[in-house]
């Protein structure tokens, strides 16, 4: 069913965007920390392409090690516009641009999901 597929895709993109926002927030907060290296999450296409394989939990006490965003979104050092004398590589303008993009994508994501919800509830009425 296509709508179900869309819902899971939209939710994984939303969680990816939220994780990216967290990483950007971390970069901005550490904009004046000596030696801090700027970070970013892996691109969403890479997260999508990766076949996820998880351990089966046969007991309620089993903890899923891949739960949360740590498994899907790897934080890595990314190319930065500038590196300061203190070894800090956070370019605030670049981070603001990234944050703006995240916000825009998130707005698009929620609008699409909303539109789909409307469609589904219209046909269910």
């Amino acid at each position, binding site marked *: 069913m296509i709508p179900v597929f869309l819902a899971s895709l939209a939710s994984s993109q*939303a*969680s990816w*965007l*939220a*994780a990216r*926002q*967290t990483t*950007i*927030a*971390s970069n*901005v*907060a*550490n*904009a*004046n*920390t*000596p030696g*801090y290296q700027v970070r970013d999450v892996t691109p969403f296409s890479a997260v999508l392409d990766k076949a996820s394989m998880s351990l089966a939990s046969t007991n309620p006490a089993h903890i899923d090690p891949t*739960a*949360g*965003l*740590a498994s899907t979104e790897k934080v890595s050092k990314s190319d930065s516009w500038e590196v300061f004398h203190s070894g800090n590589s956070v370019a*605030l303008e670049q*981070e*603001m641009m990234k*944050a*703006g993009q*995240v*916000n825009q994508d*998130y*707005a698009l994501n*929620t609008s699409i*999901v*909303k539109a789909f*919800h*409307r469609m589904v*509830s219209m046909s269910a009425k």
Partner: protein
Amino acid sequence: MSMIDPIKASMSIAGSGLEAQSSRLRVVSENIANVDSTGRVGGADPYRRRTITFDSVMSRTEGVNLVRVKDLGIDNAPFRLEYEPGHQAADENGYVKRPNVNVLVEMSDMRETNRSYEANLQIFKQARSMAAMTIDMLKGSSS
């Protein structure tokens, strides 16, 4: 799922940034306010410039990189000497030790603090708008 909501985490990270930058602004204003604070007796040391450094710390509860004030230190740069024999802090040769504060350096520090503070505030606002968008999604589907 032990992971905290990343949008909430963004807000607490931005909050830690705001806190760190406002401590920095406090240090800057302390330095500017004391730009002329000399000693009281002859040859006494004047106000010494304060410094502040930040450190990135991993929050155990949230698993994210927050920023904290690492150290409040003092600047050991030499004092400026001014010839002013009538001053109460003048030594036997008539020289007064002035604080090692350069107002221009403090001003540029203040501007940078301001810029970083605004950036953190912007991130906070965006995280809040993302949370609002998520809630709006719920609103839209019920009608």
